[in-house]
């Protein structure tokens, strides 16, 4: 049978607009973190997820610590930039009441996540997330999305997209200080630049 039996109008009949779905924020509107005043913080939503050893993890387990909660995926290039920073921050601050907790959003689960963590020498706890967890945290449409949670379990800052290493360091440092005030070597108080508002 000749292909000519197929209507030549076929190409004209196709109208497919494959517009990207779900890109709710503009490509250049990545939000940097600002550590909120204590009164403006809301509770970090509770979740129950499993780590690589099958142990149950609740966000409430971290009460009393400053937590960097990082939603990431193995297929996310910007996430691969930040993860080594978080590994370093975990190493530097784990004895100061700080912990990083990674939440993988990979559909394939540990099969792809474990080799990824090994490749990047990740030294902090990671759990496998799901849509329900993402919804609890506002949808987590874009990756990476990173939350800084204070010692009372409240969300103090949110980074959406690739952020600067110093922004994380300053935010963590601020939250680790009693009352959120930092003192330098000369014992003078200082605040991270992004916490200062002139108007």
């Amino acid at each position, binding site marked *: *049978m000749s292909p000519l039996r*197929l209507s030549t109008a*076929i190409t004209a009949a196709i109208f497919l607009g494959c517009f*990207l779905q779900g*890109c709710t924020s503009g490509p250049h509107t990545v939000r940097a973190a600002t550590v909120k005043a204590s009164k403006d913080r809301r509770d970090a939503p509770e979740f129950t997820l499993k780590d690589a050893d099958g142990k149950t993890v609740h966000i409430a387990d971290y009460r009393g610590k400053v937590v960097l909660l990082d939603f990431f995926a193995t*297929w*996310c290039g910007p996430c691969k930039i930040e993860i080594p920073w978080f590994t370093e921050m975990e190493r530097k601050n784990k004895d100061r009441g700080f912990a990083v907790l990674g939440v993988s959003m990979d559909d394939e689960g540990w099969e792809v996540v474990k080799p990824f963590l090994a490749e990047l020498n990740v030294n902090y706890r990671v759990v496998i997330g799901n849509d329900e967890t993402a919804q609890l945290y506002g949808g987590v449409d*874009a990756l990476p999305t990173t939350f800084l949670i204070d010692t009372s379990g409240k969300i103090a800052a949110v980074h959406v997209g690739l952020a600067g290493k110093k922004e994380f360091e300053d935010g963590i440092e601020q939250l680790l200080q009693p009352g959120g005030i930092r003192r330098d070597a000369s014992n003078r108080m200082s605040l991270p630049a992004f916490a200062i508002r002139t108007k």
Partner: protein
Amino acid sequence: MQAKIPVTVKVGYHVNSNTPSDDYLIPLKLTWISTGALEAGAVTYPKPSLEKYEFAEKPLSVYTGNFELVANFKVAANAPTGPGAAVGKLRYQACSNKACYQPKTIEITVPYQVQ
């Protein structure tokens, strides 16, 4: 027969090509679920562009803006005349320069008429 499938990626975003630069990246892929009286052939993907992004050391093989996928079909020898439709899935994963978005799969339908 060929069916051209136009695709538009929003300004400021890109999708990985069908042959991404790294194994960890998710490729654009069109597969057919059902083709009715047609026999599906290979899908021809356009030549990707190599673009440098802040989060990657080397340029990535991506599609941006407007491009076309070309689906090839043959008509089965015993195909009945009349209308039909080929239904497929297009999987893609998009990023901006700063963030990436969950992979998505959308359904596409190619209507046809066997005469």
